[in-house]
């Protein structure tokens, strides 16, 4: 944990209430996110117990499986879920914009601009916690290889229509969620911990109820007291007042309420089905409300300037998967081949670098952490001396002297960058420390001043101006281009098999083994 975040946690612990970790919102929040609060049956990997899902906080759709060991009931749940989620996901497919992209012409080998579709907006799924994201991935894996009767009339126990499609979308959401800064699938605990520091450990922050208590406690109660109550307070029957955010249920709920209710359902007692639905809803509803409460808190923060830029990447991701589905491509493989895995890793690394840079530029509080780490420095300009580059056509290379309290890790000639008001970046090179005691140093501007002999107005800082230089690039580029898959060197397994063998669906057995 960076020292500045440790300090924020300690301030929160001393004050008994959360402290801000960001001054702007660093994630895109959709106007109409789809909130999905799932519950799973304890000990079973592929047996959901219930869910609340929807875009209307007042009217969530309740789905419940009265007996998770019954394959038909599980399938009915998945079918209902697909009916609730897919129209939302598809609802963004047709609102498109045109974007120009450079593509290699297969005949001439030249890069030519082409017009491609980009969806104007994209769906956004919000689950309560990190475990919820994992559950979406798991459900995606369990559904995408299923066969419907339409796909394969011979298949035993065909899945309801749309279920494999939902599996493919859930898999895509789950994969995308691994890209730093992406916003197609978000967890509320992840969102809140990005923006606030609580006075407890990161481990305890995984409890959504406790986390919200620190950030937004009920009136008259300290955040700490409210969090401890949310974690462990139980009613007279031993049930948690604040049920866990799932997908795992509380064992006391399973043993004392759910199991007897399921037994009554199995005995086909009248009213047992309704009772089960009521029980499941009772566990889900507090979490549903908590997710929306968190949503409100986050929306009160102004969005960071570069959030829209990252959301555009999410829109590209959504558009690309829409195209794959429309083209009838097979579902995502069970395991990535070496080439795909390497690409994914490098794109996630690039996204992380980009996210780190953008968050720092958007938010002085994040920049403060980078300054503390010696990766940026801010100060006041004390003098500007005009100088020119050597060569046939001398260009302006002004020397800017500034005073800073920061201790950047600079060596001579190190490149530094500064954001210009128009959104551009001005590069410079570190020259020397003039007086280490007073923090005075000089940099030489190397660009961002136009093409003329005289710098464009406003492109050279004036004495007295406050400037912030970073040692990291503002729009970091990924590493060198990777070879085409067919040129994969033998060190990396050689070219992949010509025809990727489609993954077989999971075998279905006559006995329902769950």
């Amino acid at each position, binding site marked *: *944990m960076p*020292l*500045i975040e*440790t*300090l*924020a*946690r*300690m*301030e929160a*612990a*001393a*004050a008994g*209430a959360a*402290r*801000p970790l960001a*001054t*702007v919102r660093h994630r895109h929040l959709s106007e109409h996110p789809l909130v999905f609060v799932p519950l799973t049956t*304890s*000990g*079973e*990997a*592929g047996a959901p117990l219930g869910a609340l899902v929807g875009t209307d906080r007042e009217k969530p759709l309740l789905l419940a499986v009265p007996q998770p060991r019954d394959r038909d009931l599980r399938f009915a749940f998945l079918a209902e879920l697909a009916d609730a989620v897919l129209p939302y996901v598809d609802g963004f497919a047709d609102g498109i914009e045109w974007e120009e992209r450079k593509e290699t012409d297969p005949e001439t080998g030249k890069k030519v601009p082409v017009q491609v579709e980009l969806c104007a907006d994209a769906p956004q799924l919000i689950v309560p916690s990190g475990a919820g994201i994992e559950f979406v991935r798991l459900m995606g*894996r*369990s559904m995408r290889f299923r066969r419907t009767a339409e796909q394969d009339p011979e298949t035993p126990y065909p899945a309801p229509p749309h279920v494999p499609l939902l599996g493919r979308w859930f898999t895509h959401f789950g994969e995308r969620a691994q890209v730093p800064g992406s916003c197609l699938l978000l967890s509320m605990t992840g969102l809140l911990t990005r923006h*606030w520091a609580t*006075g*407890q*450990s*990161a*481990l*305890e922050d995984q409890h959504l109820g406790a986390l919200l208590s620190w*950030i937004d406690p009920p009136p008259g109660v300290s955040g*700490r007291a409210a969090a401890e109550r949310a974690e*462990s307070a139980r009613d007279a029957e031993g049930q948690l007042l604040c049920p866990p955010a799932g997908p795992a*249920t*509380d*064992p006391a709920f*399973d*043993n004392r309420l*759910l*199991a007897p209710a399921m037994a009554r359902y199995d005995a086909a007692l009248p009213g047992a089905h309704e009772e089960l639905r009521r029980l499941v809803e009772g566990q889900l509803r507090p979490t549903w409300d908590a997710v929306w409460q968190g949503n*409100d*808190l986050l*929306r*009160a*923060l*102004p969005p960071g300037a570069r959030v829209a830029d990252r959301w555009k990447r999410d829109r590209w991701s959504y558009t690309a998967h829409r195209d794959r589905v429309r083209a009838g491509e097979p579902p995502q493989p*069970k*395991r990535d081949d070496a080439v795909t895995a390497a690409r994914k890793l490098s794109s996630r690394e690039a996204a992380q670098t980009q996210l780190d840079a953008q968050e720092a530029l958007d*938010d*002085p*509080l994040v920049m*403060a*952490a980078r300054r*503390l780490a010696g990766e940026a420095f801010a100060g006041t300009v004390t003098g500007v001396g005009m100088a020119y580059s050597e060569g046939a056509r001398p260009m302006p290379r002004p020397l800017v002297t500034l005073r800073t*309290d920061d201790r950047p890790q600079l060596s001579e000639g190190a490149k530094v960058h500064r954001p210009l008001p128009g959104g551009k970046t001005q590069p410079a090179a570190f020259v020397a420390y003039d007086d280490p005691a007073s923090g005075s140093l000089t940099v030489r501007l190397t660009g961002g001043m136009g093409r003329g002999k005289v710098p464009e107005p406003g492109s050279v800082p004036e004495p007295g101006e406050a400037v912030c230089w970073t040692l990291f690039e503002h729009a970091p580029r990924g590493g060198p281009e990777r070879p085409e898959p067919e040129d994969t060197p033998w060190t990396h397994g050689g070219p992949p098999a010509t025809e990727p063998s489609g993954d077989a669906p*999971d075998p279905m*057995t006559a006995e329902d*083994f*769950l």
Partner: protein
Amino acid sequence: MSVPDARLPQVNVSRDSRPAAAAPQTEQPAPKPSLRQRLTELRGPGIRPRALDARALAALASNPGCRRRALLDGAGVDKTALAQALGSPASYGQSRFALARGNSFEARVKADGGAGLLRLLHDRLRPGTPAPGDGEVAVPDLSAAGPEGRAARTALALREATADGGWTLLDHPMLAVEVAGSPAYVEPDAVVVHPDGGWTVVEIKSFPMIDGVADAAKVGAAARQAAVYVLALEKVAGHVAAGTGRPAEVRDRVLLVCPKDFSNLPTAAAVDIRKQLATTRRQLARLTRIEDIAAALPPRTTFDLRLADDGTTATRPAEELAAAVESVGAAYAPECLAACELAFHCRKRSREDGAVESLGRSVRGELGALHTIGEVLTAAAPCTPSPGGAPEDPAAAALRRAAALRAEALAAAPVAGGPAAGPVRDTDGAGAAHGRQEPGCR
């Protein structure tokens, strides 16, 4: 799945056997009570010690610095009841669905006399011997009275199986581990004896292995548990090898059996547990120091709850109990919440003390000699308390710089000046917090 319901035998709980410390007939110091007696005193009269199962031993190994846990577990104190009596009950429990699923899965794995399990084992471990044919797997009966009886029966069965030189599946054998001077009994799901005298521990877990990958944290926990079994088996193997003259070797690769994908059909993977084995061996050896921990306690310290006649209600005042618990140091970290029944109590104390570890183990790294949140915030306060010339603690300097940068950024933030912008209240709280810590600074 394999939590043994066996309890340790009642050892030396007769209060009459207590050394006559109270008898003032001589000036000589009372004879030093044995560790076993001391641990019995700690537990309270007539209280049977809790069995230390492999899960508890593995948890102990994951927080080796905690003297409190080492002592309480070593003495066999019922930590669940203790936490309840202290007013900070643990939020543990196992769902009956998970239990039922675990049992049905284990039954399925061991069906048909273990033939399927042996096939999986042979396929995954590739021991270099021919696979067992139908009906070639011996499954000896291990039932006996009491844990010692079962442990003795298991040792005998292992000896016979090794001498026999065939495939043998031991279903739920009982093994003894020496913990702090008294035996603890642990029960693996299964042990397989190979024809070449190799022994393999089999762990059957009900978390899924999806496309050949299982949850890393759960696999780690299973491996730590298996390490306890391997340690317990090594002692028996030594005896068997000496007794039969045939090689008997406990393999350090165990077989982890899990449900495949989303079904209840078994799949398996070999897990190398050499690292866990080394850790657990070291921790268990370290546990012998329980004697030292017990010796450092104030005299007459006990964790006895003084249960009322109903056997569940503690009549001992919580403050008295808390004082007894405080007399032995704990090493609380948030990870304890998932592994120790007393964690909520220790957390409460840790938070009251303002210990920096209550925010996570990693926090300590950058804080040098600062141990409490109060100290850290004081060090971060804007005024310079260092008397002239004294070399400044680099941790304090970094903290002060961090606090100044943080305050500056918050003051400049767009929401900072606005009226109660959502939850971002009191945005100059940094300064306020410092002020509370160091009023003289203003």
